[in-house]
């Protein structure tokens, strides 16, 4: 296993560009590479901007989704590298699991490490998991697993079946309605650095086969968790699957239900059609 420690976060627009021009002719196994950064500090202004866009309140404990924003540039660097077997353009985020082992404070120095694993077969292509682990003071405090679907791609022989099932209880009662504006993708891109063209405008999204720009899955997840601020366990496992893309603009509803033993089930659905954009569970750890 190769472990590379980067001194700074890589430039994401450059990574997206590199991934785009090197998209063709990829294949093979996942690289046995880990990328890392150490002593990463959260920038207060960036955190505040993220909180505003996702509906968190600015506080010392980081939002449970925020370490993803720190780790994502490394994951992108991994995916855009020529050694990565799947082409980045067209990859769709289909599942995200986060384990928050304890509240992480905004002033802690964080060590990040990302890697890819589990290339799996999917009826419409192949999926891959991008993992991240965040430590503070030598102990892991947060980890995540993001599953991406590459439509039309082929997983190697003998690869396992992709598992996108998530049992969620009945969620009949919408608790909030969000009018998600056309600018939602651009706004989240500004605070997360995820400038994937499919989120930025209808025109750029069309280039990758979407009718309209689509909202970032991680934004939908963050917004849903933001709505539960103050009601989440200190240590928890968050598991969400992204179903139908949330086309911009849209009006969607959030449904939540507390579960016995703590935690929540949640769903984000289209107000008109009822189509599910996100299903999720939150369980105490």
């Amino acid at each position, binding site marked *: 296993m190769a472990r590379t420690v980067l001194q700074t976060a890589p430039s994401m627009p450059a990574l997206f560009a590199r991934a785009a021009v090197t998209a063709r002719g990829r294949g093979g196994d996942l690289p046995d590479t880990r990328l890392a950064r150490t002593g990463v500090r959260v920038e207060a202004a960036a955190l505040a901007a993220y909180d505003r866009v996702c509906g968190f309140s600015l506080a010392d404990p980081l939002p449970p989704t925020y370490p993803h924003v720190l780790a994502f540039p490394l994951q992108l660097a991994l995916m855009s590298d020529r050694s990565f077997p799947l082409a980045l353009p067209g990859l769709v985020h289909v599942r995200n699991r986060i384990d928050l082992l304890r509240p992480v404070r905004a002033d802690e120095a964080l060590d990040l490490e990302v890697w890819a694993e589990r290339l799996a077969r999917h009826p419409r292509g192949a999926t891959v998991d991008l993992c991240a682990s965040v430590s503070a003071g030598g102990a892991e405090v947060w980890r995540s697993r993001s599953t991406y679907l590459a439509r039309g791609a082929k997983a190697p022989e003998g690869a396992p079946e992709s598992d996108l099932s998530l049992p969620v209880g009945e969620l009949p*009662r919408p608790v*909030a*309605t*969000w009018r998600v504006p056309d600018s939602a993708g651009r706004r989240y891109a500004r605070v997360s650095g995820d400038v994937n063209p499919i989120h930025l405008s209808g025109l750029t999204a069309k280039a990758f086969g979407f009718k309209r720009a689509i909202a970032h899955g991680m934004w939908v997840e963050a917004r849903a968790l933001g*709505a539960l601020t103050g009601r989440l366990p200190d240590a928890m496992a968050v598991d969400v699957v992204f179903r139908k893309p949330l086309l911009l603009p849209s009006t969607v509803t959030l449904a*939540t239900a507390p579960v016995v033993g703590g935690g929540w089930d949640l769903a984000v659905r289209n107000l008109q059609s009822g189509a599910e954009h996100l299903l999720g569970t939150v369980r105490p750890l």
Partner: protein
Amino acid sequence: MAPQTRKAAIVGGNRIPFARSNSAYAQASNQDMLTATLDGLVARFGLQGQQVGEVVAGAVLKHARDFNLTREAVLGSRLSAATPAYDVQQACGTGLEAAVLVANKIALGQIESGIAGGVDTTSDAPLAIHDEMRRVLIALSSARTLRQRLEALAGVRPGMFVPEAPRNAEPRTGLAMGDHQAITAREWGISREAQDELTVRSHHNLAAAYERGFFDDLVTPYLGLTRDENLRPDTSVEKLAKLEPVFGTGDPDATMTAGNSTPLSDGASAVLLASDAWAAERGLPVLAHLVDAQTAAVDHVHGGEGLLMAPAYAVPVLLARNGLTLQDFDFYEVHEAFASTVLATLKAWEDPAFCKERLGLDAPLGAIDRSRLNVNGSSLAAGHPFAATGGRIVASLAKQLHEAGPGRRGLISICAAGGQGVVAILES
């Protein structure tokens, strides 16, 4: 030494007629309306140049410049400039909560008299600049170099020039209050007919109260308006039946229309409270006493309770503390945010399951005599300038109790945004 408490007296009230949004009071600010209302109260009770203990009022929709709204209104009024004042805000509960605060200080002997009020305008509402534009301007104002300024300005996008108007929507749910109530109405099976009937009664009761001169010493005309603009004395169930639903319209059986929901309105109200001794010294009447009050809140976001159901929780607490049953009242003033709010609240009190599971009661509170409900009309007919409704109700009920004779009791129940409720007992 523990202070002796006493019950605060309600001496009287004043309000301006309530106007429909963007109508008679389109040019009037909250401060204009509150000042006029205070001056009407001063004239009614001869308080020119007098110092009252405190003036407490508020507005739900407030301009940044109105940070000290009530004090500024006092300074512009005929009251002594030495009268202290402060603002409160508890959404639609503001007016009643202000009265409770004043009454409590009187009860503790900290003040001898006070004025409680509220005002709201949906016509002269505070428009905010787009939030991102606001951040650009803040960055610009702190920029020191030309380069920093240009960087700040580079963030400007055309969409940022569109101002943000306040929406009558719950911040955490994004739902309009009416859409929230539509859910509650559906859950409680409140029929369109029942809502329209309650609405008609509100209009007819308010019209009759005007006809018999009930409001002659409660309302002072303002800007050419002498009666509440929303009042439709000739409305009927048949006329209301023609209206299309406007809330909860995703439901094919939606029941809530512009008729059986309160309209956006502008107006102000004020109530004069005092110790009995203060009133007696000045030869002023005591209409009623504010006996006790209670607030409650529900989790309308994730808790599965209706946004406007908090009064249903507050009332049993208040009743228990005062050793009363729901039937021990001569008059009930249940704020008509929507006709279905009143009906759902009454139904909840009659419902054994709700009373047991949600309120933790052995038996339901039971039904009330509907002929004692909102006998002089309520918000459906009068309109509902959010913070002004409490003052309207307190003054009207106090007068109604006074007319009925000594020892009469009235219950006030007001629901408020954010899943809150303020309730109180008055006694003559």
